[in-house]
């Protein structure tokens, strides 16, 4: 599990962008979606999540706005930008490449 989360942590940005590709969302909702998708196996630490938000915002991949809930709960929503969409597809192809590389490296007897 700890090895898995180490690998996953390197792709935090991709995971968040993948969530935002499905529509605007906020911190807890994104983390909840990740948790549900992995069947409770994996969830991001809040600190990791918000650090990634700030980083992606600085890169221009996402923008944020404050929602106006009538219940008094103020949530900051994030939405993906065209730059972010491009970055997401770039990250996907990068992941495909590294996945294949990793396969040949950790299973050399099968591919050769």
């Amino acid at each position, binding site marked *: 599990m700890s090895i898995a989360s180490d690998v996953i942590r390197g792709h935090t940005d991709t995971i968040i962008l993948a969530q935002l590709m499905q529509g605007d969302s*906020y*911190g*807890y*909702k994104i*983390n*909840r979606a990740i948790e549900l998708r992995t069947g409770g196996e994996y*969830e991001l*630490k*809040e*600190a*990791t999540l*918000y*650090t990634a938000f*700030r*980083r992606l915002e*600085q890169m221009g991949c996402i923008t944020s706005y404050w929602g106006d809930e009538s219940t008094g*709960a*103020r*949530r*900051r929503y994030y939405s993906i930008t065209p730059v972010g969409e491009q970055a997401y597809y770039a990250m996907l192809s990068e992941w495909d490449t590294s996945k294949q590389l990793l396969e040949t490296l950790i299973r050399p007897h099968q591919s050769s």
Partner: protein
Amino acid sequence: MEYNIRCYVDELFQNAPRTQKAYELKVELTQNLLDKYHALVAEGKSPEDAYSLTVVSIGDVRELFEGLEDGPVQTAPVYIPTGSPEKRSAAITSIAVMLYILSVVPVIVLGSLPVPGMETLSIVLMLVMISLATGLLIYNHAAKPKKQPPAGTVVSDFKQWQTQTNSRKQLLKAIRSAYWPLVLALYFLLSFGTGRWHITWILFLIAPAVDGIIKAVLTLNDSSGK
């Protein structure tokens, strides 16, 4: 328990930089933690368990605070080593005061000589010395390096705002710092010039009044100008 979560976040953010970004992050984090907590309770967790699960899920906040400074992280200002600015400032003030005191010497020395036309020369010399000293004082005040608190704090933001809006005020302050030395100079000038020492001290009663009027006019201008 909601209160406990808020307290916990408050504590976390005690060491965070005091910026708008940090405040927004705090609001955002608090709301999301509360969402998580309520979801856990709705799942059937006890409030205590839900609280600890929520708090544990925050993780390491140190990395979070790194990006909270406003704008690019400023490096310490580079000082050109021309000696300690405080020492230099003290030296300039001392020279100025010395010039004020010495300014009466030409009047005394030249006035005692039995050569005609020396009065004018002595007064001119005295005025030159006084204006030199006044100039030094104004320069010293205007060139004084302002202490900068670490960037990114509310204090520094405020200070910056203050210096931006008050640059005109700063100049006036610099000029006003020469006011009292000028009054003193005027006193000596009048006294030596007229020889009426018994009446010229009135100047020291008039001077504070004039100072007060100047101050009032300046503040009036300032508040109406805003």
